[in-house]
């Protein structure tokens, strides 16, 4: 089943044509990886999936972004969209507040006041982000004091607390050491049972390890979009093969 359907998507930043005629289906409860050289449009596209681009001056978007069949650039409330489509960034960005308050932030914004309910959501989110055991006795500590890997998993927990359907991850491990990276990768694989995950990564092996489907972007175009194993063993487009084998340019 498709979670997102993108039809004839084009995006311009003023005169710069950043996304060109993108057509793709993103399957529900799968991990979809976007790869490609810097400036190819993959981050622009992932940000477009929860409308983080269209408020930028000079940004023009055409085409359809259907989330469960509904156009996210139509009448859908942007806050409701962002509740359904969470985002985790390259650099861990916990709020300068306690671990608990970080995770409780979104539920509070969405009107949950019951302490009991918030406790429940925080524990569930931290458990889902595989960090409950490490932080259960430090919930009142500042999130800033955590290690980079813990901060990133906390940010994932914070995103999960809003109970999204989709989790967008823009290079979520590029600032982390190999052990933290491995933990996040394990976590992402577990999360796909409940969530649809879209991940931008510069790490080819990471895309191979965790994703089900991979899209290769170049100069704003989706060049190849295929089952990950197929794309990395037998790419059909020479530009894709040259990129993944390191012969690009």
């Amino acid at each position, binding site marked *: 089943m498709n979670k997102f359907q993108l039809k004839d998507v084009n995006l311009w930043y003023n005169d710069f044509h950043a996304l060109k005629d993108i057509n793709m289906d993103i399957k529900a409860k799968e991990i979809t990886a976007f790869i490609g050289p810097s400036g190819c449009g993959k981050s622009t596209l992932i940000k477009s999936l929860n409308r983080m681009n269209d408020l930028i001056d000079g940004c023009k978007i055409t085409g359809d972004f259907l989330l469960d069949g509904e156009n996210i650039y139509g009448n859908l409330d942007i806050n409701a969209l962002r509740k359904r489509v969470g985002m985790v960034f390259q650099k861990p960005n916990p709020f300068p507040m306690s671990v608990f308050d970080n995770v409780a932030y979104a539920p509070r914004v969405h009107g949950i006041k019951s302490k009991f309910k918030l406790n429940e959501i925080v524990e569930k989110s931290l458990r889902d982000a595989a960090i409950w055991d490490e932080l259960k006795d430090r919930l009142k500590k500042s999130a800033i004091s955590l290690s980079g890997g813990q901060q990133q998993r906390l940010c994932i927990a914070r995103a999960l607390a809003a109970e999204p359907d989709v989790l967008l991850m823009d290079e979520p491990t590029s600032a982390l050491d190999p052990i933290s990276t491995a933990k996040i990768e394990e976590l992402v694989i577990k999360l796909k049972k409940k969530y649809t995950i879209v991940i931008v990564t510069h790490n*080819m*092996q990471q895309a*191979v390890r965790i994703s089900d489907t991979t899209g290769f972007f170049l100069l704003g175009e989706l060049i190849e979009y295929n089952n990950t194993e197929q794309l*990395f*063993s*037998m*790419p059909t487009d020479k530009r894709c*093969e040259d990129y*993944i*084998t*390191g*012969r690009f340019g």
Partner: protein
Amino acid sequence: MRRFDKQLIKLNDMLLEMGALVEQSIFIASQALIEQDLTLAKKAIAAEADVEQKEKDIEAFCLKLLLQQQPVARDLRVISAALKMITDMERIGDQAADISEIVVMMNDAPHIANLEHIPKMATATVKMVTDSIDAFVKKDLELAKSVIDYDDVVDDLFDKVKFDLIELIRKDSGNGEQAIDLLMIAKFFERIGDHACNIAKWVVYSITGKQ
């Protein structure tokens, strides 16, 4: 040129060297049989160790490339195909040595018949090995496919040898012992053909990604 591309060229060179050793082993074993030359036969037996050493060297080099370069796409196919091909090449080396051991056991007893088809099997299998390695290095899909087809030639030759030997035993049961030795030699050549065919199939995989 990237370091990895240089390493892949080195891998090709190593495979060519191993292929040359294997071809030489088949050729020497067949010459030893035809000329009943025990010195040549012993040379073919000794060459088995060189082939095995080459296999170990290439295997270690491929594992190093997998570790260092974490290859994908055609690079991954080339390295995994090379790892499979050297197993078949090593088995060919073993079988050339097995043929030579039988030649040594047969000593200089006169042949019960003119050896017509076995030398043809030797020539055919040398060609199959040469072509399969060439196909790998040149990424020549058609050449690889022709090797796979050529296996039928070797199989037909084996059937002819078998038929001739059955006739010889029927005429004179005293021919039995050498006939069985010659049948085993023919079977080893037929198996060499199968291994060359396997090599060619891995070449097809390295080019097309299809097994």
